[in-house]
């Protein structure tokens, strides 16, 4: 591979005194030198923490309406002010982050699983299965993702609602009557349905290119079975790219949830969503800009953080760039 420049042949790097470095150790070191990446990582971890503990740290009940304090600007008691129903915006933003992170987590991991399985399977099996998989992935990628997700939401929601209603009747579990939970479910489903294709195509391309590398040939030459080669050599070589893709995708999944909610087809009240908050604030953004600015800036900051993390990981895990 062309990943190693002439400098790696120098004696001080090949000398015995040098402690063996691991690929991941190397990557961690490169990443820690990337300022934007580290800043992004700090924000990202902070965001994940908030998402985890939001219900216990919010200063007010995020759905509590206080008609005495409607549309107030930021103050010592309400750090981000209050909305048109007198709810504490800070509490709502924190809960909105929780919503977005929850959606992003599930969507990112489920798309990773679908994308890796389909992409790798298509590349390894080849033939008409590969052709069909590529066809489906290209088809999904060529639609505007959000438009497609919105379409899927609108089409599937009544079905899912009816199904949940039937399930509630037969099982009488409260779970099936909770519309907030069902909103989440619909958003997860449609975003995952649309988003796995990008990763699938990436994994397929990676597997196809790595499979042609000489070290895979060398593995066959020592009598390794196809399974052995896949598990021990193909997977670790593809993993770096998958991790980079997932970290960037995480931020965009949060944005997608907000966009759907902004359009009114994602999370609906009383569930808290940054996108819906922006939508609600739009009505009076001239007089109360904080209603749009607070959730909007929060969202922008979070997405930027995840993009920086993804960028940093890409530099750290992609040896061709690392050697520069």
């Amino acid at each position, binding site marked *: *591979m062309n*990943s*190693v420049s002439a400098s*790696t*042949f120098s004696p001080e*790097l*090949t000398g*015995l005194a*040098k402690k*063996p*470095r*691991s*690929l991941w150790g190397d990557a961690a070191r490169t990443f820690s030198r990337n300022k934007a990446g580290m800043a992004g990582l700090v924000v990202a971890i902070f965001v994940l923490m908030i998402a985890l503990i939001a219900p216990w740290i919010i200063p007010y009940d995020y759905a509590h309406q206080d008609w005495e304090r409607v549309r107030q600007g930021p103050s010592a008691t309400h750090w981000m002010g209050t909305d048109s129903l007198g709810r504490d915006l800070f509490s709502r933003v924190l809960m909105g982050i929780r919503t977005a992170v929850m959606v992003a987590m599930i969507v990112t991991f489920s798309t990773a699983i679908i994308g890796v399985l389909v992409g790798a399977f298509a590349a390894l099996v080849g033939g008409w299965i590969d052709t069909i998989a590529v066809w489906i992935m290209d088809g999904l990628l060529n639609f505007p993702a959000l438009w497609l997700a919105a379409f899927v939401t609108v089409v599937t929601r009544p079905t899912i609602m009816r199904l949940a209603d039937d399930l509630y009747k037969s099982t009488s579990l409260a779970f099936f009557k909770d519309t907030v939970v069902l909103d989440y479910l619909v958003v997860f489903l449609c975003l995952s349905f649309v988003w796995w294709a990008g990763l699938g195509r990436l994994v397929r391309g990676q597997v196809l290119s790595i499979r042609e*590398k*000489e*070290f895979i*040939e*060398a*593995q*066959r*030459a*020592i*009598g*390794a*079975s196809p399974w*052995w080669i896949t598990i*021990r*050599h193909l997977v*670790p*070589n593809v993993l770096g790219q998958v991790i980079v893709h997932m970290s960037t995708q995480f931020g965009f999944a949060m944005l997608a949830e907000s966009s759907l909610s902004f359009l009114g087809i994602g999370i609906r009240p009383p569930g808290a969503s940054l996108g819906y908050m922006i939508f609600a604030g739009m009505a009076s953004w001239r007089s109360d800009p904080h209603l749009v600015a607070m959730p909007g800036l929060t969202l922008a900051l979070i997405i930027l953080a995840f993009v920086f993390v993804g960028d940093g990981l890409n530099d750290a895990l992609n*040896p061709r760039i690392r050697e520069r």
Partner: protein
Amino acid sequence: MKEKVLEVRDLRTRFFTHEGMVAAVEGLSLQVESGDVVGIVGESGCGKSTAALSFMRLLPPQGKIIGGEIILCGQDVVSLPAEQMRLLRGPKIAMIFQDSLAALDPTMKVGDQLMEPLQIHMKLSRADARHAAIELLNKVGIPSPEKRLDAYPHQFSGGMRQRVMIAIALSCNPRLLIADEPTTALDVTVQKQILDLMLQLRDELGAGIILITHDVGVVSEICDRVVVMYAGREVESGGTRDVFLMPRHPYTAGLLNSSLSLGHDRRQALRAIPGLPPNLIHLPPGCPFAPRCPRVVERCREEMPALREVVLGHEAACWNMEE
């Protein structure tokens, strides 16, 4: 006591491409006994690597062996089921690649890669395999192997990596070792060390070696016998001394004239062979070397010469041989 580790008779390998059928190997025969070093020389694209991949049964999907026999340690490899063939790679036949950096997995420690064939074929436990790996690194002359096991390929120098490749290839005591341009990517000083190492290990293990190269200097140094290939065909073969001192085929003579050696007479210019090897898809009738041959006669363009024994064990395929 010598045993026959590889016998190839009239091997014919084809590539089926969009542009047409490529006659990559056309009628190659050779024999390797344990302890032998047999060289296959020729220009790039003459079919020497394809021949090696045919012996290993590792041809790419569009490549196919359409004729001949390859008998590896008494077993006909051509008709063997894929799974049985896989089990022969490692314990019976192994290969060293040209670019050691490309041939090692960049994400895996050298030690783990060295342990893999032992785990696959000898079913050794991790601890046992690790001990065996340390021993192997010792054998190929890598200092403090316990430490080097945990290093990654990019932390090794080119020569060290080639030693690791040799250790991996020899880990299961193969009877036949195929080295495809093993020293091409290395410094001249390191080349000599690697060649010496291969010879030393051959003496220890008694394996046969096939050395594939375009470097006639390397061949003259370590090979007992040599096969010269041109356009997929075997044009001359015999003992290295016989062939290189008295080349019968004009292509062999051309190869020797175009290579530099220490004893080279400086007043005599290095003579390249004019022209390029032919397109293997549309081979003209007759000898494929005819368009570039200084001794070409009318018959060469019409009829392909067969291999003819000139002296015992030395054969060449030419209508117009230097006797």
